């Protein structure tokens, strides 16, 4: 009777049923499989669950439904006394979700025991990271959580898109979970350039051979801190004139020469022409020379000290502002901001 039922099921899958299966969504197949499992129709359940898992996407099963389908498939196969198939289903499940544990209220102990056996012999790691991380300050890191099926040795490294090693992050044993941090820098401490990278986790078997690798795509964008523009120098319109146009100088010359003439004629005016000491001509000469010097000096543009001081204060104020902004910009140029976008992890190498 069982054989007939299986044949019927196979016929249903191989003949008209394929068209029906293609017509049905994977989620519907999953529902049918679970109902068959509940009805203890394990053969039908196995066939339908395999069909649901085999559906190419889209629309394929979601990761959660896929885990559910594999858990029920493993239990189904165990009840069909196909222990190897059950173990294979659980193994596939653990690769999808290494953190999965069977619900003991749903599955009997023999299912949990087999799952546990499979888990302890399966070496796989699930990788999760926030979709967007920013590394601004020295203490900022990209935080990656690793969840392992069992204790085993792993190696975590960041590779360039072409597979060249950028930096090793971890090498050692892992337990249930492990947090790995990356500061966005290369092995030499320099900030990584913008581009695509892969955070790769290699799980090693008992012989040291890599049995599974998971890659987490990282899209890294590097940006420098924005600089502040320098203030414009004081506009010419704000500057006061520093020189006044030179005068004629005639007044200075006249003053000097007139005073010199007074010195020369003073004895005549005072004493009625009685001589006069010769030394007075030195005074008259000094006054005459002073008048000529004053004539020359006054013809030159005259400085306006108050305006010069005001302009200097204006320039000094601008210079101070510019120096402060230059220092601020120099500090900002030293700051490197990294934005890391993490993609969906995928097994990059399954031996």
């Amino acid at each position: 009777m069982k054989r007939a039922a299986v044949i019927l099921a196979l016929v249903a899958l191989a003949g008209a049923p394929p068209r029906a299966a293609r017509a049905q969504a994977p989620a519907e197949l999953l529902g049918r499989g679970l109902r068959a499992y509940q009805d203890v129709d394990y053969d039908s359940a196995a066939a339908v669950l395999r069909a649901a898992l085999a559906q190419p996407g889209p629309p394929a099963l979601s990761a959660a439904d896929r885990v559910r389908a594999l858990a029920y498939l493993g239990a189904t196969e165990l009840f069909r006394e196909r222990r190897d198939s059950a173990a294979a289903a659980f193994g596939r499940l653990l690769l999808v979700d290494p953190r999965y544990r069977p619900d003991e209220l749903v599955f009997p102990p023999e299912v949990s025991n087999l799952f546990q056996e499979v888990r302890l012999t399966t070496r796989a790691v699930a990788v999760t990271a926030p979709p967007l991380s920013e590394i601004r300050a020295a203490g900022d890191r990209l935080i990656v959580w690793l969840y392992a099926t069992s204790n085993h040795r792993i190696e975590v490294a960041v590779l360039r898109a072409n597979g060249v090693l950028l930096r090793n992050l971890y090498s050692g044993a892992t337990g249930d979970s492990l947090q790995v941090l990356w500061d966005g820098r290369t092995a030499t401490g320099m900030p990584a350039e913008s581009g695509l990278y892969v955070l790769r986790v290699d799980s090693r078997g008992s012989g040291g051979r890599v049995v599974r690798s998971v890659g987490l795509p990282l899209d890294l964008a590097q940006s420098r801190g924005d600089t502040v523009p320098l203030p414009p120098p004081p506009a010419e319109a704000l500057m006061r004139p520093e020189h006044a146009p030179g005068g004629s100088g005639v007044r200075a010359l006249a003053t000097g020469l007139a005073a010199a003439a007074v010195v020369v004629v003073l004895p005549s005016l005072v004493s009625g022409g009685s001589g006069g000491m010769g030394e007075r001509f030195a005074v008259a000469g000094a006054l005459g020379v002073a008048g000529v010097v004053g004539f020359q000096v006054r013809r030159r543009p005259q400085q306006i000290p108050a305006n010069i001081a005001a302009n200097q204060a204006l320039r000094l104020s601008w210079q101070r502002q510019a120096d402060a902004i230059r220092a601020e910009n120099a500090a900002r140029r030293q700051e490197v901001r990294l934005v890391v976008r993490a993609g969906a992890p995928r097994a990059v190498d399954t031996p």
Partner: protein
Amino acid sequence: MSARSAALVALCALAARPLAAQAVRYAGGDAGVSRVRLKSAVPGGGETLSGVAAQGQARLILGRVSLEVSYAQGRLSADTGAGGSRDLVDGSVFVALRPAPWLAVKGGPHLRAYVAPSGTERWVMWESRVRAEGPIIAGTLFAHVEGRLALSSSVNVPPGASGARGGEAGLTLRGPQSPLWARLAYVVDQAKLAGNARTETVEAVVLSIGFGGR
């Protein structure tokens, strides 16, 4: 009222209001040396003496009013004539008003003495002086001229004084933003005895260094 008293009263009246309204702003002074020549002429002859005198001035400036005290002393030796050497002592106290920054009007007593072994000749003159000062280079170099007239004069030599007048011209150099200044000036004044019995002309070239107000 004599001319001397009238001048003094007028000067005091002019100075009273500004003095009351002004506080002491600053003081100044200078000291220097002067080359002095005294020419004493009498009808038909005379003598000339020359020498070096030390001199000093002090000023107290109260806004537009200032008080000036001066003193000079030196020894004059005979260049011509039969007279011997004599000492020159000269002092004055003036009150000055500045109706304009470039103009000063002064008044006060001016005393001069010639001290010789044969006796001392003392002159007392109440003088009025008008001084004008103008810049050649603003703030640095100034020229000045001054006219002097004795409103009254007396001397202890017969037949007595008949008057005196004089003048001064020179230049002052002041350092930029400095309280120090230097002055080079030529001064001449002449005093007469009554009846032109004798005229005494004193000339001096003065070089002095000052501090503070001028």
